[in-house]
């Protein structure tokens, strides 16, 4: 039982990282129907920004802030240069461009930062504490706490601000929103900015949770976070949070009770099962196809 609870704790902290990345995927997909394959690499950029900021001796809150600002700028820049010119072209073109950007960021990372994994400097050296029968480490609490705070903040932003309202309007009907006077370009920019900032925060969090970073670290978490977004219902913000948590839990439970080598198969198996029985995801709305 305590083993099970322990895996739940591990799963929640890993899941909050997936949830943060999945939010970026789901927000972008909800508005421009693009699977932004470069999103996983934005997360990598966040991790490295955090790495250099800590090496420079900055305090942790500042590190987190910087690791959100730099990816946010990068995300907006990528959108402006690579995705905006293709907004009205076939979707596959934008998809391939996203893959190209992803390859570019990965290989630039290998070129500039070397392909070798680096240890992420540890900021929190406090020993883990006992909570009943389970052991909880400071990074785990922090990851979960920061993710929770960011998600609550995002929910309020989407629900109560004018920009948030505009984002919801764009997701519902881009053209109608444009006719109502919403500035489509700048709202899409803001979407990329927020999504990338969340991915950057996830990058720092994963650095202190699993202290090993490398330029290709974004590929697998990126894919899994996207899967999490689909499982939760793509386009739905609570869905991405739920999907991310679910993905984290499934992964740690598989590692703990079955075998770590089957971990990825179970994660993708979950996706297939969800897609077959409820293609729109757990919290997604079913859109009927019209002629």
């Amino acid at each position, binding site marked *: 039982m305590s083993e099970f609870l322990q895996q739940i704790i591990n799963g929640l902290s890993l899941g909050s990282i997936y949830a943060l990345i999945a939010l970026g995927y789901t927000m972008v*997909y909800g508005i421009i*129907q693009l*699977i932004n394959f470069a999103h996983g690499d934005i997360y990598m950029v966040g991790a490295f920004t955090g790495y250099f900021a800590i090496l420079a001796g900055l305090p942790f809150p500042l590190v987190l802030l910087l690791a959100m600002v730099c990816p946010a700028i990068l995300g907006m820049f990528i959108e402006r240069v*690579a995705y905006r*010119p*293709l907004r009205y*072209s*076939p*979707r*596959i*073109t934008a*998809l*391939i*461009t996203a*893959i*190209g*950007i992803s*390859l*570019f960021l990965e*290989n*630039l990372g*290998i*070129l500039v930062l070397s392909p070798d994994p680096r240890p992420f400097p540890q900021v929190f050296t406090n020993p883990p504490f006992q909570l009943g029968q389970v052991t909880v480490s400071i990074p785990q609490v922090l990851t979960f706490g920061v993710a929770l705070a960011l998600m609550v903040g995002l929910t309020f932003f989407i629900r109560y601000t004018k920009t948030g309202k505009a984002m919801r309007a764009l997701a519902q009907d881009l053209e109608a929103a444009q006719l109502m006077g919403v500035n489509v370009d700048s709202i899409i920019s803001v979407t990329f900015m927020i999504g990338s900032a969340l991915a950057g925060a996830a990058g720092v969090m994963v650095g202190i949770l699993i202290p090993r970073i490398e330029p290709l670290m974004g*590929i697998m978490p990126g*894919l899994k976070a*996207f*899967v999490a977004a*689909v499982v939760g219902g*793509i386009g739905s913000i609570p869905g991405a949070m739920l999907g991310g948590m679910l993905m984290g839990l499934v992964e740690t439970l598989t590692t703990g009770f079955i*075998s770590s*080598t*089957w971990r*990825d*198969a179970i994660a*993708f*198996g979950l*996706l*297939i099962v969800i*897609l*077959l029985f409820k*293609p729109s995801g757990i919290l997604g709305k079913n859109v009927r*196809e019209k*002629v």
Partner: protein
Amino acid sequence: MAMKIDVSGLKKYLLPAGLAFLLLINLFLVLEFFGVEVIDRYVKGILILMQINIILAVSLNLINGVTGMLSLGHAGFMAVGAYVSAILSIFLSKSNLPEVLLFPLVLCAGGLAAAFIGMLIGVPTLRLRGDYLAIATLGFGEIIRVVILNLDITKGARGLPGIPNYTNLWWVELFMVLSVLVIWNIIKSNHGRALVSIRENEIAAEAMGVHTTYYKVSAFVIGAFFAGLAGGLFAHYLGYISPKSFDFMKSIEILLMVVLGGLGSLTGSVIAAIVLTGLPELLRFLQSYRMVIYSLTLVLLMLYRQEGLFGRDEASAELLRKWLTPRKKNHPGGEAGEPTES
């Protein structure tokens, strides 16, 4: 936009050009019997990989370009074909079967195994549309890889060594030409028109009496078969395979060939496969900058030539003339990338 296949172009110019090229390679190979070595091992290796990639690109084009189903798991089928044929030929190499008989046999077995897996995957997932289908195929591709990683018979992550090196240029040429011919004929048949109608408008196709599920699954299964075949050739060329060779990036690499060549354009796929296999080799002098330049080229190409090199047209002399005649006639001061009405 109406679908235009310029058959005369293929027959008149490209086919003879391609055949002439193949003939030239064969001539070089024949010369080798007499001790004159024209192409070295390195070039031969690239030529073999190019043709394997042609089979992969053409087979994915049937699924992706012609039928319009975005599939991101093509490397999975390749893996199934590679492993099945490799294990079979390791097992059968102790028997007295001559290579001429054994090799096509194991390749076909690999292809059939891939086709079978393709059907298992296709029947439930092809109900999904667009991006959901893409993600489901991606998931299945990864699952195939993880299963291979965990089985005993495939030796898991260490990879499978000791596969007999049956693949040479002759065999690859034979299977490449066969694959292209078969797929070309499928596209031009009734069956192919049904597939195109699904791409153009699935609901309308269904309303006109096209059994969409049957046709979609058939395209998927045929594409998987040829991917399995290519996997078998790949395994018997390298002599060693590991699950790493068939990951998500390999699927993406094949997809790039299809999209760059133009969705639905077979000749485009062939040319893009040749270019994308050769380009990294040509860029070798750039060393560590190579992949950065490669990915940047890809993004720029997508930004400035969105429909791929050939769009949906097949390569032909006429298309070449259309490219070469500048658009200055209509627009003296117009931008180069601007589409012009004619």
